[in-house]
């Protein structure tokens, strides 16, 4: 069979051509192509890594921002709370003081009123006493104008003494 019989000439030229082209391509084509492919792949990988890193950094930054914001918010809340407390305490103080003052004034007023009242009463008492004495003097003077009447009185008084 001619078909399956290797031909020397063809093998000879195949070896010459194939090794020539293998040599040329190995020297000039494959290293360039493979190196470029490697470099491109590496640069793509690097770019992807960088993007990933940037993304992570971004996330970190965002988290930081969030933290700062939260802190600021907390701070603000704290300040507001303190202010509110201060306001409350001032108001309370003022209220207490006002109440105390009012109480004190009222107490003073009451005491004064009491004093005045007492003084007035005392004076009234004195006047009443004076008046009573004067009235009694006049009454007694009239009633005791006679001896009978004086006797009656003395008897009445004595009666009372006995009862006791």
């Amino acid at each position, binding site marked *: 069979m*001619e078909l399956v019989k*290797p031909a020397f000439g063809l093998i000879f030229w195949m*070896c010459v051509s*194939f090794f020539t082209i293998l040599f040329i391509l*190995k020297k*000039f084509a494959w290293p*360039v192509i493979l190196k470029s492919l490697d*470099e491109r792949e590496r640069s793509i990988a690097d770019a992807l890594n960088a993007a990933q890193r940037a993304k992570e950094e971004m996330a970190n930054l965002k988290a930081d921002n969030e933290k700062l914001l939260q802190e600021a918010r907390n701070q603000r809340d704290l300040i507001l709370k303190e202010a509110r407390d201060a306001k409350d305490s001032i108001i309370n103080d003022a209220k207490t003081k006002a109440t105390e003052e009012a109480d004190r004034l009222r107490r003073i007023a009451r005491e004064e009123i009491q004093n005045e009242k007492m003084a007035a009463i005392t004076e009234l008492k004195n006047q009443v006493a004076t008046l009573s004495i004067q009235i009694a003097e006049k009454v007694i003077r009239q009633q005791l104008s006679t001896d009978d009447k004086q006797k009656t009185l003395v008897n009445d008084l004595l009666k009372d003494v006995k009862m006791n």
Partner: protein
Amino acid sequence: MKSLPIAYLLKISKVNQLFSLLFFILFSTAAYAGGEGHEGHAEAKFDPGKMITDHITDAHDWHLWGEGHSSVSIPLPVIVYSSARGLDVFMSSAFHHGEDVHNGYALRDKKIIAVNEMSGPAATATEDATVTAGLWDISITKNVVSLFVSMIILLIMFMSVAKAYTARKGQAPKGLQSLIEPLVIFVRDDIAKASIGEKKYMKFLPYLLTAFFFIWLNNLLGLVPIFPGGANLTGSISITMTLAVITFILVLINGNKHYWHHIFAMPGVPTWVLFLLTPIEILGVFLRPFVLMIRLFANITAGHIIALSFFSLIFIFGQMSAGAGFGVAIFSIAFTVFMTCLELLVAFLQAYVFTLLSAIYIGAAVEEAHHDTHDHDAKVEEAHII
């Protein structure tokens, strides 16, 4: 009348634009199919076996069209050397289609033989058997021309691609680069790296890449029916043998201690089994490249034979009646178009399979001892099924 089927088919095909285009594309194959077998006799029967054999075997001239004396072919240089007669270089046209003796050489069954006469008709010449036996024929045959053409294409293609990579450093591929790049990555990642391993693949990658693109390009060129395609280069046993031998030599040179240990004394196997196993393993070393050689040769040759067989049907029926020839032509061409589509796939597949198996054999040879050997054996077995 001798070329009636073709002429008739061509005339009728003008009716249909589509068919005329198909005929134009397939013309050279068809013309070839009608050739040579007739030897100028109008009533000579069409011999499909001879036509197909003529087409898929090598030749000393590149036949284009016509038959016998009126055939048109490109003459190719004949280079023969023998210690008795020295070096002889002349064009194959000097044989006058194999009918004449030139300078003591004649063409018989498409092979060059040495004859005792210096000139005259080849048919009556007597062979000088001793000189023929010592004759080194390194003529530029049809396949060698095809080989050179493919080499030039490969060279131009990859040098321009390499230049593009230098010129457009770090940029996305463009044009031919975009076609080549995925294939280079495919060979690198899925064939070399996967079969040989991360550490050692770089050493064999240039060979695998060159072999892959060489086989693929020539498979495709074989599908082109017009010059300079149509030669059955990768379906030629000399070519596939050379490639298989290169793989074989790479395995022999690079096979490490671990590999040979596995061949001659498979570890973990009882001694008495080794008497059986070692001969099989040694046979396997030779069988692998042999199968590589046969697989590519048979696949590509089969593709050519099928396409040519369909065309032969046209002429077999055309000899009965022109109408039958035309009727069969419709189906033949439809089937050939289908087969050619399939052959496009086969062209790639066989290039892939050859490269993959080469890589796997090399991978098995350079494999380090600590690897899981059963895994690799399984891979080789699996590959054999393809």
